[in-house]
């Protein structure tokens, strides 16, 4: 029994789908952020598995891209959580159901 590229891609697809569900369906803003981080991780896993298995002239480009994705994800998490804390300060809640001032 051997492990191929397809196995890793399926794992990445499952994680990505779970991340999309979390990002769309959770009520707490931190839950939405957890979904986004999970999506980043799924994409990183796909990059690294392509870099390992697929023919390429410069295979480590995948790893470099993963490092950039991790960096940007860290910056984005910091900013998003700062916004969450500010939102809590103003609205006393971080339920995405109740932050609906722009509702028509």
């Amino acid at each position: 029994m051997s492990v191929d590229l397809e196995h890793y891609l399926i794992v990445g697809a499952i994680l990505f789908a779970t991340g999309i569900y979390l990002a769309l369906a959770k009520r707490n803003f931190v839950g939405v952020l957890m979904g986004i981080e999970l999506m980043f991780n799924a994409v990183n896993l796909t990059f690294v598995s392509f870099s390992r298995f697929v023919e390429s002239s410069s295979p480590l480009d995948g790893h470099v891209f993963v490092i950039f994705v991790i960096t940007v994800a860290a910056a984005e998490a910091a900013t998003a959580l700062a916004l969450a804390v500010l939102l809590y300060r103003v609205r006393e809640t971080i339920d995405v159901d109740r932050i609906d001032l722009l509702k028509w």
Partner: protein
Amino acid sequence: MMEDTGPVVAFWILAAITVGSALMVVAVRNLVHAVVYLILSFVGIGGLYITLSADFVAVTQILIYAGAISVLLLFAIVLTPRGSRDNAESFLRLPAVLVALLVGITLGYVALDTDWSIAGRGGFEETASEIGELLLDKYVLPFEIASVLLLVAMMGAIVIVRPEGTMEPVDPSTRLRTGFAQDGEAEA
């Protein structure tokens, strides 16, 4: 293709841990438990990187995701005491399930159906030095932009969370002399 028993067993165990923890993040009814399961899934993904012989990326993943971003998430939970902690779903439950299933099935089908050109080489020997060379040679512009991005994000986060107004200035003559040169005070 990895055929030795070791990496295959490791892959199945780690994939089970990762996917299981990700599904538990959806299912648990306590937000802090959900974050702990998310941390477990990050560590599982780090393990999967090691089976793909990506040692530098695996250690970076554990250092940044399990060590820093998780702490950010936990701090946000602590700093929002009246936010809902029961990890409930919003009113978009059903559309979200449909979208997630659609995306997952599409990705899975594309992954299984495409004919990837698999390389014959095995795993990498040591990735850190080559990643370093690539970062400073071919990808030096994104590298510098990423550092500026981090600086801007850090400053932005601090500015966003600063309290309203400034604190009133302290009268220097009533400060306790502690040996640090205070603002506006000349050293004796």
